[in-house]
């Protein structure tokens, strides 16, 4: 058996995408459709005291009073209004909506609307902010004792900046009103998040709200929570006008208004013995949440849980805070807090190695988490704890030690990072989600019914592979239903590297049940004799998983994927430009269901991580993104892409489908610290990313 899993079958969505046949949201139209635009605040903080609108009657204008239900974007905290009423907390906060039948009639529409404000002094500094969205404390062992045992103590502060997801397809939705109901089509990751937000906004019963995901041109977390806001806007206009309303952001608006990765300040204090054993780790994590809570609490949570890195230490104290500032809200982005904190710990580890005068590989070998060790939250690791194997594989493959020796004192550098990433929701999250997945028998095989979305990462193909093998049917016999809340159960959001491990497992269970029920019959035979049937399964936590949300201790994740990156760079002594020349990316992901797609995730995430390390900077001026064009927000081009050599190791996870764990997010945790460590090897002391040439020039040692 096992014909599909583990092989790189032809992806299901491939042919439509390469021929231009795939329909993305902006490719759709509905009869009588209007276009919608958003009028946004232009100040970072204050109150709107007056509104002047100079528009002819063919424009339909909506404000918060047009919201039939409640005026907040339902997610975690009900703090963020869908349309500002009086208070403004950030530049680009939505205030009014305008609809018109002619798309072009909306160009320059914001010039026809003027607000009088009573301005208040904004605060952009999370350190001095008085509003804390979330505070988390993790304590393991006795930190005082850990420092008493230390012979050497190393301190350090590390900073990361905003990062934009920069999916190439901007955010967009179409809302289609019906009789007391609403349907929203859109480019989105989480149909049921949007559904929940629409139910609150409209006051409709859940069965009168329908959300359908269209082909989605990239998400990376940027279409996790933001589409709820946009869907609400389109719905308001659709309900008010009684017509379908399309809202597509142009690139500038998408950059100005939508969420970014949280900037972070992370402080480390680490106690060690002279031979490099960590005795104590104290970590302080401060994240800039922006103006509203959005997902800051959970981003912070994942950030702090990963803040001590993949290292064994008996005495750990981690403190985390997510603070409010008057900038557009920050939110989900691949890695979800872990890239920030693992950047810090991995950059710190190389400074520790330097302070002790030992080799950075040796330092990590001594301290890497091993099977049976426990993490910062006290989670005891199973046999699939692979920090050491990935480290050794990466060091060997890349010739790390030799290059490290030979390149010393030159403008070439080599650096590494060791990291891990929990798969699935944190703590009791998966239990609370109680995800469901269904499998429906068809005449020729089976149809997968889940809300998990294909956003390029290969969801439909990978889930179909799992089902095909569990059903003992050919891959082609498995169809995947486009996510539509009227048809598919809530299998949870497509985030947190959970789709393969959690949803894949649910479907595997569905398929095994279906297989048993079919007995000796083929689907066609069964279908003809008894008709279709559907199997639905709900998430059940693996036995023995325990999490204490008060003390923040226990089994934070079902399992972890492990990674090690080695980045080789060249620094131009004339211009301080850094060229990554080669990356070795080793990942242990349990099982590569589709090796080519898994490799694609690792390469894509690594490239995004290199951008994070070297190029990508959101220039904030007076609370506004000043470089909101693609020409000025710099992501890597084909010319900037180094070869990325991927090696995947497989230590199966007992509760994942065919042993699989998550793979989507982890690849972005490692590149930034590996780059910074390679720069350190070249003589540059960098503790803030992106490491632009301008910063390098000042950081020469």
């Amino acid at each position: 058996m096992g014909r599909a899993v583990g092989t790189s079958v032809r992806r299901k969505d491939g042919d439509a995408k390469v021929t231009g046949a795939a329909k993305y949201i902006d490719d759709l139209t509905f009869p009588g459709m209007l276009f919608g635009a958003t009028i946004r605040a232009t100040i970072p903080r204050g109150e709107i005291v007056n509104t002047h609108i100079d528009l002819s009657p063919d424009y339909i204008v909506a404000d918060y009073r047009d919201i039939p239900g409640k005026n907040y974007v339902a997610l975690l905290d009900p703090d963020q209004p869908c349309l500002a009423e009086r208070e403004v907390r950030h530049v680009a906060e939505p205030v009014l909506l305008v609809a018109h039948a002619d798309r072009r009639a909306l160009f320059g529409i914001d010039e026809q609307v003027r607000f009088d404000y009573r301005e208040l002094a904004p605060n952009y500094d999370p350190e001095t902010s008085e509003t804390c969205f979330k505070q988390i404390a993790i304590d393991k062992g006795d930190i005082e004792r850990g420092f008493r045992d230390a012979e050497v103590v190393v301190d350090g502060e590390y900073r990361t900046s905003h990062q934009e997801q920069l999916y190439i397809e901007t955010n967009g939705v179409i809302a289609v009103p019906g009789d007391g109901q609403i349907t929203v089509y859109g480019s989105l990751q989480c149909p049921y998040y949007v559904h929940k937000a629409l139910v609150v906004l409209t006051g409709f019963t859940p069965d009168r709200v329908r959300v359908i995901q269209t082909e989605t041109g990239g998400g990376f977390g940027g279409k996790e929570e933001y589409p709820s806001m946009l869907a609400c806007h389109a719905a308001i206009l659709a309900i008010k006008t009684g017509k379908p309303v399309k809202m597509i952001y142009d690139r500038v608006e998408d950059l100005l208004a939508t969420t970014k990765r949280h900037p972070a300040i992370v402080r480390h204090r680490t106690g060690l013995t002279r031979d490099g054993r960590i005795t104590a780790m104290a970590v302080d994590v401060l994240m800039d949440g922006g103006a509203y809570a959005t997902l800051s609490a959970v981003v912070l949570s994942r950030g702090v849980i990963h803040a001590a890195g993949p290292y064994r230490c008996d005495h750990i104290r981690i403190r985390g805070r997510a603070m409010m500032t008057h900038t557009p809200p920050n939110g989900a982005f691949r890695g979800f807090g872990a890239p920030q904190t693992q950047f810090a710990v991995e950059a710190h580890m190389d400074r520790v190695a330097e302070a002790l005068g030992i080799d950075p590989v040796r330092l990590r070998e001594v301290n890497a988490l091993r099977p049976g060790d426990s993490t910062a939250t006290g989670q005891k690791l199973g046999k699939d704890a692979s920090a050491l194997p990935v480290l050794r594989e990466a060091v060997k493959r890349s010739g790390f030690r030799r290059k490290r020796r030979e390149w010393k004192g030159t403008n070439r550098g080599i650096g590494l990072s060791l990291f891990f990433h929990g798969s699935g929701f944190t703590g009791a999250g998966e239990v609370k989600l109680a995800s469901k997945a269904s499998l429906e028998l068809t005449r020729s095989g089976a149809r997968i019914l889940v809300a998990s979305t294909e956003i390029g990462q290969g969801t439909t193909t990978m889930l179909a592979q799992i089902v095909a093998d569990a059903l003992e049917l050919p891959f082609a016999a498995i169809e995947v239903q486009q996510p539509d809340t009227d048809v598919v159960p809530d299998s949870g959001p497509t985030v947190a590297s959970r789709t393969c491990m959690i949803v894949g497992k649910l479907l595997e269970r569905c398929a095994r049940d279906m297989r048993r029920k079919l007995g000796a019959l083929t689907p066609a035979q069964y279908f003809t004799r008894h008709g279709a049937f559907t199997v639905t399964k709900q998430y059940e936590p693996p036995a023995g998983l325990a999490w204490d949300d008060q003390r923040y201790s226990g089994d934070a994740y079902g399992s972890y994927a492990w990674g090690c990156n080695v980045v080789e760079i060249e620094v131009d002594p004339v211009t301080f430009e850094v060229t990554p020349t080669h990356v070795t990316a080793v990942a242990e992901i349990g099982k590569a269901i589709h090796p080519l797609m898994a490799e694609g995730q690792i390469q894509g995430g690594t490239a995004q991580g290199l951008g994070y390390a070297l190029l990508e900077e959101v220039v904030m001026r007076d609370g506004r993104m000043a470089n909101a064009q693609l020409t000025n927000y710099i992501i890597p081009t084909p010319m900037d892409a180094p070869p990325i050599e991927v090696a995947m190791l497989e230590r199966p996870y007992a509760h994942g489908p065919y042993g699989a764990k998550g793979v989507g997010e982890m690849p972005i945790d490692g590149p930034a610290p590996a780059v910074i460590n390679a720069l350190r090897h070249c003589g540059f002391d960098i503790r803030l990313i992106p490491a632009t040439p301008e910063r390098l020039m000042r950081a020469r040692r």
Partner: protein
Amino acid sequence: MLLTINGRQRRLTVPPMARLLDVLREDCGLTGTKEGCGEGECGACTVLVDGVAVDSCLVPVAHVEGCQVVTIEGAAAAKRSAKALQNAFVEHGGAQCGICTPGMIMAALPLKAGASRDEIKTALAGNLCRCTGYISIFNSVEAALSPAKKGPPSRVALRRASAHARRR
């Protein structure tokens, strides 16, 4: 205005300064050409005009009067190598979310058989992809243009499969 798009003549009433991109998508219903920026940076809107790759967001429709315009929808009919490219993007992981893919394929289309990796990079330098890190895109184009390297199903995957086979 008389335009030839994918070999078919169309008479359209459009302003001369309208972006070719809008004319294709809105007036011709050819939505395979995508808009990622409208400022010439991302290449998602790439089409061929008389065989030359251009960003259709930066071409006023007046400039293509009397020219042959080819979009992703007409690529396979217009050029033999298009089918191989399209197939290779599926087989070698060149298309993930797919939004950059039509532009990538159109930008790769003028390349000659046997193009080197450097030539491929140069041809695609004006196309952004946020999903792949570009490597599988280079692999896809290379595989399509070099018949010798064609082979089932994907070089990359096989190499990887054996890499982790060793581990077990």
